[in-house]
């Protein structure tokens, strides 16, 4: 059903936009822009002026820009929740008998509802680091579920796609390794970020460029793993493009973009380390990692359809 596939695709793209916005909240320091949840300073629409604050709220907490950045995140979150709701309805309507489509769609709906509540926990816990990281991980899970549902719908509409695909030997193993390392790398990235935050809080007057050198082991591991992932990704991407047969556009474009993105990631990582972790680069580093993970997952699902053999 083309309408489901198209809608699910737009919802998936919108979810990645939301991940971008969430990253923007993080790097602009707007996480506590609205100190309460779900209302913002006791209102459904944030104050535009400090005089609009309720009498019992600490006025020093109010920052117009940060409040509205955080509120925009919540608005977009609700919108995506609504889009996922419609996706789930469409999945049940058109693919009631196809478990691999309606189950992930409904699961995405459940997760996004949970995500909304979890976002509230992030705020009330005053941005406890584990909860902040969990908020990102759940977002990636939701994106993954939507990718899966969309991709399965694509295969139903294009039954021959990737069915007769032949992949180079061990490429599936490599892909699995890459995917696991990618997730590990995201977790390591959150730890690098946490370590830096702790250093910034302890030494508020030291420039960030100097603090970066104090982060420690986790930074070295993250950097090293990043380079290894980049090399492996380019190897896997290359053999998929050159040595696979009968692959669909999903696989070809996926392989191509995963290489482009991983190289962009390494470049961003280098810039972050050398230029004192500029907020703008952090945002794209986080976002591109999320997209990369999604592409890997998409390729992984594609590989399941075809045959992995010596080519």
């Amino acid at each position: 059903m083309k309408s489901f596939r198209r809608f699910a695709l737009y919802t998936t793209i919108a979810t990645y936009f939301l991940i971008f916005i969430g990253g923007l909240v993080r790097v602009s320091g707007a996480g506590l822009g609205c100190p309460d949840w779900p209302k913002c300073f006791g209102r459904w629409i944030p104050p535009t002026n400090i005089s609009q604050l309720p009498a019992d709220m600490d006025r020093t907490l109010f920052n117009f820009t940060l409040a509205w950045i955080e509120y925009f995140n919540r608005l977009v979150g609700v919108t995506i929740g609504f889009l996922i709701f419609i996706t789930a309805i469409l999945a049940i309507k058109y693919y009631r008998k196809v478990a691999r489509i309606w189950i992930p769609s409904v699961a995405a709906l459940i997760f996004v509802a949970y995500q909304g509540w979890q976002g509230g926990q992030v705020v009330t816990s005053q941005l406890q680091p584990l909860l902040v990281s969990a908020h990102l991980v759940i977002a990636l899970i939701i994106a993954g579920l939507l990718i899966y549902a969309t991709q399965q719908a694509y295969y139903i509409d294009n039954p021959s796609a990737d069915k007769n695909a032949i992949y180079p030997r061990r490429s599936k193993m490599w892909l699995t390794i890459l995917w696991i390392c990618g997730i590990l790398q995201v977790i390591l990235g959150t730890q690098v970020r946490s370590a830096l935050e702790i250093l910034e809080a302890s030494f508020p007057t030291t420039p960030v460029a100097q603090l970066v050198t104090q982060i420690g082991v986790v930074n070295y591991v993250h950097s090293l793993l990043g380079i290894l992932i980049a090399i492996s990704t380019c190897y896997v991407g290359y053999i998929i493009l050159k040595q696979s047969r009968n692959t669909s556009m999903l696989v070809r474009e996926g392989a191509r973009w995963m290489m482009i993105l991983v190289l962009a990631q390494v470049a961003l990582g280098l810039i972050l380390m050398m230029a004192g972790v500029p907020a703008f680069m952090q945002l794209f580093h986080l976002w591109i990692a999320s997209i990369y993970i999604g592409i890997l997952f998409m390729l992984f699902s594609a590989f399941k359809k075809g045959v992995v053999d010596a080519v």
Partner: protein
Amino acid sequence: MPSDRKFPILIPIVAVLALILGLGGLLVIRTAEKSRDTLPILGSVPSFEAVNQDGTPFGLQSLQGKISVVDFMFTNCPGICPVMSGNLAKLYNSFSLESRLQFVSISVDPDRDTLAALQDYARGFGVNDSRWQFLWMPQADVVNLSENGFKLTAQDLPSGHSNRFVLVDQLGRIRGYYDGTDDDEVAKLTLDIPKLTKAI
């Protein structure tokens, strides 16, 4: 899914979207960073009349044109005043080259705190110029200024005075409150003062 044919169109679309996100993100981050450098405006100091430890009149107009850190104390204070004045003395010394900054300590014990007592107290903390002034005003006036002007409680004086340092900008507006006995909050005050000097 768009077919292969449509892909050449997709790449410029993706590029434009990435550019919009990039520029938008940059703008938002810049605005957020600038907003964090801006201290909130929490109120305005009202008119008042006092004299400093040398007998010179000191009022609202003496606050204007300079950045001021204001607190309330009394010279016979056994508890928090030594800590508060000690912290102010640290700031007095570390900002010694900043002529746009002044410290104003207001006595809540006008009966016992004579001008001479205030001068002694000042000397005890190393005050040797006009950057730190100690004010004397009648009891009723000091209660009024503390409670209505600075929104700080002034019950059971002299010992019931507030422990807060108040940051006042060059237009006489209150820009922040800091617990003068808490090292972290004093550290935050140290970082907030330059945000106001930058604006002059």
